[in-house]
């Protein structure tokens, strides 16, 4: 028997070494709040994605962390593996006595509504979840007019393009925000440049791969460039990121990111990244949590801010004239004198 143990031990030692070798460089993810000064717990459940997805899950998580730091509250997250787990994951935070639960993404809308109805004493924030079916007092749906964000980016693209062709490489039309971004983008480009040609394509596969296929994004981006587009909008998780990085490989072209300021989230795209069509999820989440802490959070829809990210290296490319036009467009969008052409906005 001793020999058995020795063998077992030898095998384990090998695996241990391997594990240590693989794990040595891991920079630990900061997920725990440092100081618990107040008794207030914030929980965040991601969509089927990760808090480091360089996109909306990450934005929401950053917002929750910012709010927690200000309040001095405890904050934690659960990454959802399968969308069938939404309910169970929300329940984990309920069992844990969370005061505010942030659920991220469209798909979690129903689970969030059910949980909010069942637990009126807990506050819920649903990112990207429109509350159209009636107001639940303890549930705020944080939604964004993506079409306006896309419209602004498109307006800039319409002015920047020299070939008069602008391209878009997109996630999937199965998810409404992506469609909103696309319609806004195309109409924005036409607004500032009526003669512009817009060529756009959605990922042809299912929703499960549409946001996680950078190879297709890059290849398609190249195909779009090859037919003359000189500014490309990449919108759709790592698929879109692949498209941006591909544009960066050719000098003299521009690309536009989505959701967050992708200057920081996709540094590989910096050589071409003029701006990003942003949804300020972090700010929206943080301010709703602050409201919740102060006891003034209101149920129903809360419209978040959208806008363009800083131009970074392209400050001089975007002329004063262009900025003036963008300001006009923004004003027009805000007062409703300009329509994005997206029907449901």
């Amino acid at each position, binding site marked *: 028997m001793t020999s*058995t143990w020795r063998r077992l031990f030898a095998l384990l030692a090998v695996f241990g070494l391997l594990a240590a070798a693989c794990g040595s460089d891991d920079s630990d993810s900061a997920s725990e709040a440092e100081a618990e000064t107040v008794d207030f717990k914030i929980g965040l459940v991601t969509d089927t994605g990760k808090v480091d997805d360089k996109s909306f899950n990450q934005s929401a998580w950053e917002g929750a962390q910012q709010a927690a730091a200000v309040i001095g509250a405890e904050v*934690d997250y659960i*990454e959802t593996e*399968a969308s*069938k787990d939404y309910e169970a994951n929300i329940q984990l935070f309920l069992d844990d006595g969370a005061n505010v639960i942030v659920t991220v993404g469209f798909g979690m809308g129903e689970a969030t509504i059910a949980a909010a109805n069942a637990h009126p004493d807990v506050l819920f924030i649903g990112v990207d979840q429109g509350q159209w079916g009636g107001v639940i007092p303890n549930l705020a749906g944080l939604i964004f007019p993506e079409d306006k964000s896309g419209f602004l980016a498109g307006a800039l693209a319409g002015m920047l393009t020299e070939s008069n062709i602008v391209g878009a490489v997109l996630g999937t039309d199965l998810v409404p925000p992506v469609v909103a971004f696309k319609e806004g983008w195309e109409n924005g480009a036409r607004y500032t440049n009526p003669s512009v040609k817009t060529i756009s394509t959605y990922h*042809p596969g*299912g929703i499960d791969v549409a946001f996680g296929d950078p190879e297709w994004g890059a290849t398609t981006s190249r195909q779009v460039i090859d037919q003359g587009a000189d500014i490309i909008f990449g919108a759709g998780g790592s698929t879109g990121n692949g498209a941006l990085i591909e544009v960066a490989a050719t000098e003299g072209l521009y690309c536009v990111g989505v959701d967050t300021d992708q200057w920081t989230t996709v540094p590989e795209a910096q050589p071409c990244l003029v701006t990003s069509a942003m949804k300020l999820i972090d700010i929206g989440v943080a301010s709703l949590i602050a409201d919740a802490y102060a006891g003034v959070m209101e149920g129903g829809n809360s419209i978040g801010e959208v806008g363009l990210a800083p131009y970074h290296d392209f400050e001089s490319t975007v002329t004063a004239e262009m900025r003036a036009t963008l300001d006009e467009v923004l004003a027009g969008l805000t007062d409703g004198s300009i329509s994005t052409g997206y029907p449901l906005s």
Partner: protein
Amino acid sequence: MNKKLFRSCVTPVAAVALGLIIGAILIASQGSSPITAYQAMLVGGLRDSDALLRTFQKATPLIFGGLAVAFAFKAGLFNIGGQGQLLIGAVFAAGVGFGLDGLPMVIHLPLALIAGGLAAAIWGGIAGALKATSGAHEVIVTIMLNFVAGNLTDWLSSSPWKDNSGDRIIARTPPIEPSAEIPTWGALPVGFLLAILVAIMCWFVLERTTFGFQVKSVGFNKDAARYSGIRIGVITASTMAISGMLAGFGGAVESLGVDGRFEAGVNVGLGFEGITIALLARANPIAVIPAGLLVGLMQAGASRMQFKADVAPEIIDVIQALILFFVAAPTILRWILRFQNQTDEDLKLGVGWGSK
């Protein structure tokens, strides 16, 4: 007899134990406590009726998918198309589930289940029929059909069968009628009982019927089967249809018993897991049940594990791979545990890969 049963359990149990131990080392290497992690996983999958329900729900499509792959293996066919067949089953079950109303449950529910199973049988049967008639390799065809099924079901749920109850809704069908819902008895989803029943039926068909004998003959030795008068083409096509139907039932149970509708993207990867389950169970229909339960338990507990112990849920994939490795390579287990086990046949499926 008892001793034989005991013998046949040693390998899988040892494999699971070893997989978990190595998983623990990985967890520890990330600075978390393996004990906390595993405890959280077990609690998350077993503690109360909610947890148990989740484990059973997770296990159900895994069992169906495992049966689909295992059944095809018996005829020497490799069905990689479980994902597509599951989706087809799920969407058509949901289609009947929400599309018809006013039917009593005793008619509506079986009808929806059968619709899903039948559609998936046709989907799987395409690959079988093509193989039988033109020799098109079932591996190519089922892989391709997975993509086609994904797109087809996405389109169905985003266009003709779309839920239009509100603006800006993701691609999904309306909820199914209550008369098509598969009930849950306490912590026990009836879909799970169905899976067990189907597993027993698979065993019975394979071991106790002429058809099952023919299927296995084709899988064992195609030439011998042909000489003994078995029509290979018919067996190939019908085996793939049955395999597709099994995977399709898995999808139908998801729509009717868990999700309450079909939604694009929620059944991602479920069909592929069937391959792992079938292999863990060494293509034995009865063994598919514990294999599905084990993986279902790990999946049900993964969220809690991340929550309580900060362990990335992907660790369960790694553990699954390790368990599969040890189950498949009993040589290593024997070397470590030093037991002689002559009854423990090595699993051989690859023979069936060849096509003629």
